[in-house]
């Protein structure tokens, strides 16, 4: 038997929920120390459950848990911040759900990653305040860096040669930009123009607020989204489930932009 306390308290952000049995749900939580936690909430799907609203995905909550044999069990939950500004807006909730999946994929159970929790909260706060979709690129670069997959953007990732200011290949397997001479050895990648490279270099060092106020056009935004998407897919070895939904919402909001006076009452 371990000497860890039977009941413990932690702050966390609810990333996802899946149903278990008749009335229980399992929640994945990113805890304040950056570790991931799966725990079960008994009876939470009944209307009279006291914890129901406090464990909705995208909620920051104070949690009390009891150690269980396989999964820990929530005994109390209290909302700290419900992110209403995210969940009540179609576009912003889609962006936040994407970030939550990314955090879920990079977080590891019982392995602390001190920077991860503040990083996700910062993006959620900024999105809730109405920041543009490009902050996702900042988040992707930062989370890659936290995980040890920092992109080499200043010199060739393979031979360290200086990169001339011209169209350059970003190759995920090489770990960054690759000079013309190394292109054949670098594997699959995407050619990036000078503006895209400049934005990536800026995003790596910039604060979230500075990056959010940068003007990025639609074409450039799509180029960056595709390039970083390749890098994430390479490291995660899978597609992100939420990116398809995010694309559907983005398409819809181009075709039918939000009306000035919403009549969802």
């Amino acid at each position, binding site marked *: 038997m371990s000497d860890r306390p039977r009941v413990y308290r932690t702050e966390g952000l609810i990333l996802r929920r899946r149903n278990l049995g008749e009335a229980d749900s399992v929640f994945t939580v990113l805890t304040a120390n950056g570790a991931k936690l799966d725990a079960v909430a008994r009876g939470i799907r009944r209307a009279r459950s006291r914890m129901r609203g406090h464990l*909705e995905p995208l909620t920051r909550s104070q949690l009390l848990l009891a150690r269980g044999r396989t999964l820990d069990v929530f005994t109390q939950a209290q909302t700290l911040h419900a992110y209403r500004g995210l969940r009540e807006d179609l576009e912003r909730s889609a962006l936040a759900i994407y970030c939550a999946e990314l955090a879920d994929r990079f977080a590891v159970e019982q392995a602390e990653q001190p920077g991860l929790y503040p990083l996700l909260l910062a993006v959620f706060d900024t999105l809730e305040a109405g920041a543009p979709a490009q902050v996702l690129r900042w988040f992707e670069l930062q989370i890659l860096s936290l995980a040890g997959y920092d992109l080499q953007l200043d010199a060739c990732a393979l031979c360290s040669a200086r990169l001339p200011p011209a169209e350059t290949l970003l190759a995920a397997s090489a770990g960054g930009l690759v000079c013309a001479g190394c292109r054949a050895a670098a594997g699959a990648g995407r050619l990036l123009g000078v503006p895209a490279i400049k934005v990536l270099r800026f995003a790596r060092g910039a604060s979230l607020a500075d990056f959010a106020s940068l003007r990025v056009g639609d074409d450039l935004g799509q180029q960056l989204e595709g390039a970083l998407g390749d890098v994430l897919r390479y490291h995660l070895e899978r597609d992100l489930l939420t990116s398809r939904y995010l694309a559907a919402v983005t398409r819809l909001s181009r075709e039918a932009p939000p009306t000035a006076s919403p009549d969802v009452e």
Partner: protein
Amino acid sequence: MRDAPAGTPEPIVRLIEAFHRLPGVGPKSAQRLAYHILRTAPQEVENLAAAIRDVKQRIVLCSVCRNITENDPCAYCTDTRRDPAVVCVVEQPLDILAIERTGFRGRYHVLHGVLNPMEGVGPEDLHLRELVGRLQAAEVREVIMATNPSLEGEATAMYVHRLAGPLSVRVTRLARGLPSGADLEYTDDVTLARALEGRQDI
């Protein structure tokens, strides 16, 4: 994986495995059910088998509202006393029974799910196209979104609202607030804030 001890006759093993695949049935319950069937009168077992076969053969989705029905279109869609101008959108067929208990007399549309991006369920996995088709064709004035008040249910409601945007149809959402018998002390902030916003004169 075999759920029965070695030496169990093959038909029983097959039945145990079939029961085990049902939701909420573990290996022990599956064994118990299988041996119960073995002891049951032949006629009763025939009835059970026929009921299972019928439900797959005779139940279809209504071509209008996607509700489960034996006759297409379903009873809700053909009932002329119901108001065709008001359509209540629900997640599952069972939700219709809950709404019916309130005395609602409009029509329905069943999505068979909600947007759940984290599990890979997107707009194309729901019966949304049929809903938009109905809104374009018929004289629908109002769509009531009766999806659950969860992140997924809210996202679905907002998505439908946006789809209906160019169609000049009023999209409404079930009110959110405190359930009867609730405890203010344990109520979450969003519910309480919504309840305050939606307060009414007594």
